[in-house]
């Protein structure tokens, strides 16, 4: 524990005033820890790491971390990140976003980033609701769940994030949860390491809004439910479909090779310059 804490503190901004904006018990801090450990394990030069985020609870993460950090407008993190990465392909670009940020207002940028296959790692923290603005339903709020703008239950159907990312062309797609931290560390590590567009969904809890409005209990209860509901893909493959129904599948959904955008563009530059 002490060792983990030491690693974390190495990457926190000393000048930034804590406490953070997140509610006590929020899962976003756990994802931040996983991200730090993944970066530390990869031994990345922190001058060459840029964290880009949009708007929302999860997007507040970069301000606390001692990297190049860019907190942008709602939904646009991936578009800003595209400019950073293409301008300097040596940069490790990691996008921190949420379900509303990435999939509603940023949905277009999300699918096109998957398709374009730039070497960007997108960590999508899915807490199934808009937290910062007070519990409105998001593109991942389950059907019939309650939200402050769905007082009679959500009439819409949610996105399946891994399927969406894979269909749009992401070369690495994985899902972990804030309960299964060791796995999440590994998925983020692999996502950053992957040369190509990576999408890591970090399933998280918003007990303050989603939990309260749907009577799911406090943070601890929601994490326990995550433990119960999560089902590794490998285990699911051996089970009958009716037992998989309603489970939260975790693990690596897709890991394919496709030439990366900046590599292709650099090759173009080289050939045009006759090198």
């Amino acid at each position, binding site marked *: 524990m002490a060792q983990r804490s030491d690693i974390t503190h190495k990457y926190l901004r000393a000048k930034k005033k804590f406490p953070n904006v997140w509610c006590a018990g929020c899962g976003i801090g756990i994802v931040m820890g996983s991200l730090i450990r993944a970066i530390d394990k990869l031994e990345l030069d922190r001058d060459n790491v840029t964290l880009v985020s949009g708007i929302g609870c999860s997007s507040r993460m970069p301000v606390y971390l001692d990297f190049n*950090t860019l*907190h942008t407008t709602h939904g646009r993190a991936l578009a800003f990140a*595209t400019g950073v990465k*293409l301008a300097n392909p040596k*940069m490790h670009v990691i996008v921190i976003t949420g379900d509303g940020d990435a999939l509603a207002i940023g949905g277009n940028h999300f699918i096109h980033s998957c398709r374009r296959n730039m070497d960007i790692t997108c960590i999508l923290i899915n807490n199934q609701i808009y937290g910062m603005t007070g519990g409105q339903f998001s593109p991942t709020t389950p059907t019939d769940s309650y939200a402050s703008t769905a007082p009679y239950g959500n009439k819409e159907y949610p996105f399946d994030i891994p399927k969406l990312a894979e269909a749009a062309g992401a070369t690495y797609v994985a899902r972990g949860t804030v309960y299964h931290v060791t796995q999440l560390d590994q998925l983020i590590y692999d996502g950053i390491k992957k040369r190509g567009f990576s999408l890591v969904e970090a399933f998280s809890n918003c007990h303050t809004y989603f939990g309260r409005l749907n009577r799911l209990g406090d943070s601890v209860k929601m994490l326990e439910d995550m433990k119960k509901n999560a089902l590794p893909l490998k285990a699911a493959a051996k089970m009958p479909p009716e037992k998989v129904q309603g489970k939260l599948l975790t693990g690596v959904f897709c890991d394919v090779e496709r030439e990366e955008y900046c590599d292709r563009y650099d090759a173009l530059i080289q050939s045009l310059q006759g090198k």
Partner: protein
Amino acid sequence: MAENIRLMQGNEAVAEGAMIGGLRFFGGYPITPSTEIAEILARRLPKVGGKFIQMEDEIASVAAIIGASLTGSKSMTATSGPGFSLMVEGIGYAYMAEVPTVIVNVQRGGPSTGLPTKVSQSDTMQARWGTHGDYIAIVLAPQSVRETLDLTVRAMNLAEVYRTPVTLLTDEVLGHMREKVTIPEEGELEIINRQKPDVPASWYKHFEITPNFKSPMASFGDGYRFHVTGLTHDEEGFPTNKSVEILAKLTKLRNKIMRYLDDICQIETDGMEDAHVAVYAYGIVARAARQAVQMARARRMKVGQIRPITIWPSHDKKYREIFSSKNLEAVIVAELNQGQLVYEVQRLVPKHVEVISLNRFDSELITPAQILNKIKEVR
């Protein structure tokens, strides 16, 4: 010599100017009548190691150029009214986060999708007030193809010096009109590059407020590891709710430009010494105004011309001096819209000077004859 002379379009001149000015990143989305700019830069940028990317929309385009600029590349996008409407979100971010960027708006008729292939100056006020909040916009408007080239370079220079978005406001006719252009020799045009910090990282403040309101700018990857946000922030870039820090930030955004109006604002005048009537027009309309003024003078009418090259910000003091020209009785404001810059003129003329609007918004240019007729009416 001859190879330096070319017949080119305004849109080609933007691309040529961009290459001369040191552009290294263009992010854009196709839109008439600006698309040639993207097409040319898609071809030329990779040849010099620069980057071109076509994004999924204009919102993403402006976001990408901001990201690239923060990473150290001179960056630009080009669009027209409907695209500019989408870009204002990102442009506002660039004002707040003080990111050098150039946005070219080749104006077409509006509102909405309007007239994709027809000329207009109806985005004049949008260029100034398009995004929400308080900020000072720098907007430049050329009247010829060669001036389009020059002002593209100037827009890039101003963006770097003042760490702010700069809009180059052209129009469909200027963008597609071909004129003989002498390409400037190397070194003929001043090219200004970003001032980089030389202090150790622990001393560096990305949004430092200095006595002259200018501050060096590090790029991502330079080892300074700073934070950038669109939230109102302190000098280090961290979000703040403290009124004293909010005041300091918003005052800086204003002062860093308003203190330098003499450098930023270009206004051309002709024949104002004895003019009874002045014609005030920018961009393509100033060409018609020039001819009308010459025709009027040939008829011994005392007419002068005022041409704002920097449309925004307004150099109020300079304009008041010009409008105080001792014989001046009337100013004709000719615009390809229903009257936008006329409000600026009304605001700045002495009480006894009459302001007359001459507007055209049927998608055709204002002709010299129209302006001359107006001059005769006033006389």
